[in-house]
């Protein structure tokens, strides 16, 4: 029998629907894989074997009863630990939420359950999604399946590593500054940040509310599209949810793979090149651009001068929103409480709890945001960053009058070593250089693997950016490029990863 964990989500769903395998067999194969390899990867913070098998049994029962199964019924998934799951631990990678059992499901969680997706467990992440390496998890770093001494990206390193080590064919991530796309790039997997407002944020613990966006992670573009459609759509419980039809991303992925992208205008962002970009990353990116040209796309260089200021603007806006959002962790209603011994006031208990419960990066960002928002500095920092945000949106608007999509490397380098940037925040922040502008503008982005860097043999990601609510363009271009690359390589890129 073929290894059930090596299949795509689409293949698995088809095999369950036609009775070739049961959903329980699929779930068991993945739970076995987790038991075999995750002590080395640390992709999961919590494995819910009982819940996964119960969900799988329900799928098998539906099929036996002749009910029609949804397009992802019975497919296992790793859910980033930022989404609430009723009665199942949700830590956000933080000590402050250790042992918390949420009293409600996030909308994404609910939609996954309604789609009969089998949730295997909760995936590891940088604490409250703040980081680019998953080293900021209070529960230990996740390791990159391509090289266990290297980071799997972040904040959603657990989700990406689970895919790359065949512990799950699907995962959910969140992308505030690149936390879906950057882990995708450095693990050789696909990650999509949908248009802001495309996927409900209800029950997704807030870090930076104007930037946070949940989205799909997978090993193929089509699988990401299937997951995208399962979780996207209007939700009255999220006041920023877009009340409009979900872009037809599955159809776009199928069209891209079969009919290509002839005549499509592709812009190469001039700003995402030069100093700090690894030679092998640039090489694979340029080869992919030539491949897009060979597929019939028209390639144009696009100048987005304000993108050079996206990183500093982001590191004012995101910490400002974080300092406000994380004020909710006050030790009163849920989570950790330290120092409640009768001698300390409520305010002192709050400060003692936050000191004990938050890690260094979270503290840094809370204080940075508090600084940027304080009177006397507000205009120079937060206010100015908001104006830069306007200029970035204008650059995107101008670009999308000339081209249908933009492309760039997803990250300036391949996966770096664990510990290499851990105590140098500015070096760490550079990992998100190319992904951040999209979050500030609220439009859509995808990363997909485009080869291995010759100098280190590690995956390189190509980023595609599309206008807001044109997420389908990502899938059209992504699927076309994926098909062309697969033809060149002769096998999926993850077949080249070392065996675990």
């Amino acid at each position, binding site marked *: 029998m073929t290894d059930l964990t090596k299949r795509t989500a689409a293949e698995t769903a088809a095999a369950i629907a036609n009775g070739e395998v049961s959903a329980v067999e699929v779930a068991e194969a993945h739970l076995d894989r987790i038991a075999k390899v995750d002590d080395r990867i640390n992709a999961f913070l919590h494995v819910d074997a009982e819940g996964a098998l119960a969900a799988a049994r329900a799928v098998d029962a539906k099929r036996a009863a002749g009910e029609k199964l949804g397009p992802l019924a019975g497919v296992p998934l790793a859910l980033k630990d930022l989404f609430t799951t009723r009665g199942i631990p949700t830590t956000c990678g933080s000590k402050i939420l250790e042992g*918390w059992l949420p*009293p*409600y499901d996030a909308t994404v969680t609910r939609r996954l359950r309604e789609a009969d997706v089998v949730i295997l467990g909760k995936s590891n992440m940088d604490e409250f999604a703040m980081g680019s390496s998953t080293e900021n998890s209070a529960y230990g770093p996740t390791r990159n399946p391509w090289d266990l001494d290297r980071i799997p990206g972040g904040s959603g390193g657990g989700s990406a590593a689970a895919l790359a080590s065949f512990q799950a064919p699907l995962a959910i991530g969140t992308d505030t500054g690149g936390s879906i796309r950057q882990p995708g790039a450095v693990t050789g997997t696909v990650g999509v940040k949908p248009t*802001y*407002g495309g996927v409900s944020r*209800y029950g997704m613990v807030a870090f930076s509310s*104007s930037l946070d966006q949940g989205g799909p992670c997978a090993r193929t573009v089509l699988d990401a599209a299937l997951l995208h459609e399962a979780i996207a759509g209007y939700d*009255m*419980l999220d*006041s*920023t949810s877009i009340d409009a039809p979900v872009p037809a991303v599955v159809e776009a992925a199928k069209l891209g793979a079969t009919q290509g992208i002839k005549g499509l205008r592709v812009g190469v962002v001039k700003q995402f090149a030069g100093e700090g970009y690894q030679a092998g990353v640039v090489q694979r990116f340029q080869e992919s651009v030539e491949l897009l040209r060979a597929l019939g796309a028209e390639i144009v260089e696009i100048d987005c001068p304000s993108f050079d*200021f996206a990183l*500093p603007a982001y*590191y004012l806006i995101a910490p400002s929103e974080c*300092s406000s959002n994380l*004020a909710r962790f006050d030790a*009163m*209603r*849920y*989570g*950790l*409480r330290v120092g*409640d011994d*009768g001698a*300390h*006031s*409520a305010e*002192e208990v*709050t*400060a003692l709890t*936050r*000191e004990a419960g938050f890690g*260094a990066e979270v*503290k*840094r960002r809370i*204080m*940075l945001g*508090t*600084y*940027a928002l*304080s009177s006397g500095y507000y205009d*120079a*920092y937060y*206010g*100015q*960053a*908001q*104006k*830069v*945000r*306007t*200029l970035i*949106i204008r650059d995107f608007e101008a670009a999308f009058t000339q081209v249908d999509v933009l492309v760039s490397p997803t990250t300036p380098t391949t996966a770096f070593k664990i510990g290499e940037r851990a105590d140098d*925040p*500015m070096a760490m922040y550079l990992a998100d250089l190319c992904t951040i502008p999209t979050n*500030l*503008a*609220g*439009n859509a982005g995808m990363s997909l693997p485009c080869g291995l860097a010759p100098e280190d043999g590690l995956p390189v990601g190509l980023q595609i950016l599309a206008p*807001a609510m044109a997420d389908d363009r990502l899938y059209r271009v992504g699927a076309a490029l994926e098909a062309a690359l697969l033809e060149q390589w002769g096998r999926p890129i993850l077949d080249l990863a070392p065996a675990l």
Partner: protein
Amino acid sequence: MSAITREEVAHLARLSRLELSEAELDHFAEQLDAIVGAVARVSELPTEDVPPTSHALPMTNVFRQDVVRPAGTPILDRAEVLAQAPAAEDDRFRVPRILGED
């Protein structure tokens, strides 16, 4: 020039309700100073007539009917919520002393 001093970090920590250790104050002062120095680059762009953007989408408030919602829509169960509290008493959250005692 040092933008952020150790004293300033201590002030920020108080505002942020973080009971930082002495060692953390030193470490964060150095790091925050470097970060603020880097992000201050936003002032290099001319933005005289540029309006600020707080949010990429137009924001409108969302209202719902003030009616009891049916089961299945998110209604939190009181016992389930209180079971997750650090301390609870008589169907309420139990919190440490808030006002001065006298």
